[in-house]
């Protein structure tokens, strides 16, 4: 960024003004909602639920059978 000339610097300033205008929300609102989203999704997450693994396509289903 040190090598930037005037036009590039102007764009950077404009971009920063745009970013400043962003409508931010309070962490006390967003973080609990993030948590809730995760908790709602946990039952469906194959990595966290051994039950779902029963239907897992990667697991060999049964032992070998002698034909």
């Amino acid at each position, binding site marked *: *960024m040190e090598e*930037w*000339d*005037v036009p590039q*610097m*102007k*764009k*950077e*300033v404009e*971009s*920063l*003004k*745009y*970013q*400043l205008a*962003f409508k*931010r*929300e*309070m*962490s*006390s*609102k*967003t*973080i*609990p*909602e*993030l*948590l809730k*989203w*995760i*908790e*709602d*999704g*946990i039952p*469906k*997450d*194959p*990595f*966290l639920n*051994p039950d*779902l*693994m029963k239907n*897992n*396509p*990667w*697991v060999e289903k049964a032992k070998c059978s002698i034909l």
Partner: protein
Amino acid sequence: MCDQTFLVNVFGSCDKCFKQRALRPVFKKSQQLNYCSICAEIMATDGLHENETLASLKSEAESLKGKLEEERAKLHDVELHQVAERVEALGQFVMKTRRTLKGHGNKVLCMDWCKDKRRIVSSSQDGKVIVWDSFTTNKEHAVTMPCTWVMACAYAPSGCAIACGGLDNKCSVYPLTFDKNENMAAKKKSVAMHTNYLSACSFTNSDMQILTASGDGTCALWDVESGQLLQSFHGHGADVLCLDLAPSETGNTFVSGGCDKKAMVWDMRSGQCVQAFETHESDINSVRYYPSGDAFASGSDDATCRLYDLRADREVAIYSKESIIFGASSVDFSLSGRLLFAGYNDYTINVWDVLKGSRVSILFGHENRVSTLRVSPDGTAFCSGSWDHTLRVRKTSFHFAV
């Protein structure tokens, strides 16, 4: 009496005002001109003006950055780990390698899953791009690119095409055909053109548009059919190394990370940077949206992974350990977002509890750097690619409580 500098008076026509005056040599962009003393003075102050403008812009930028920090701090009323205290800790995980895909002749640089949850496309330093059926480990397609270091590859949403590129500075699309008589390379379509290497590419929601990131410091959106540039994204101060599109429900944004240590969120329609985060201490190698679209994670050469809350516009977690000193090259979330998988340059994969900030598993197996890592679309497995020429597909064997 010491040295004296003598000013030689040359009379002639000034190169600027053309009046007959005593001239002084003046150097502009290493070319010598002869200016009269008046024009020479004016030029000296012009230079000053330009410097002043640059300096004033720089200080304006600094003060805006300061204001951004202030605004962000106002919203910092709660910490993630505080809120997460009430959540049950995860136990220990055992994740087994279910498939090892061998066939690349050199470092695997990138991979992507097909939406059918079983096919994988991977690209390598050897110039080859291979499409695998990961259940059977069969290679279904292989293309040799005209360049080595194919750093980026992506599967089209329809499953009917792949995109790839690297040192050729281009992103090319290859339709996948099962006709044995057809030569895949013959159907190649060059879509994107950058002025430096292609570091990442991704189809948008359809096969019709591709988003690219490049060593030339820009990202760009292209129409596949015509090869036309639809939008370009300028703002990174150095090579852009990675990008990820927001999950379709949340709208038209994407996040990119670069060698300037910045992660930037862009509006795809306007080309504007909506949010930027500069908390990493080194190159950002990988960025991945959180499944809900309200956050994203990044992995960096500073050996940390970080989580950013997009709605509160701040970094909310750092995943690091003193014992981890090598850069994180690639990150991805599990389906619920509770786990963050990260591949590192010390050949390991660390699995982090996103909420608690603790590491729940460390996976070995690769014999060189892990360069790329993606969780399958249905969340049942994840695949990692490495400089050891192989790809490994892993799933949890079992998860036992602490």
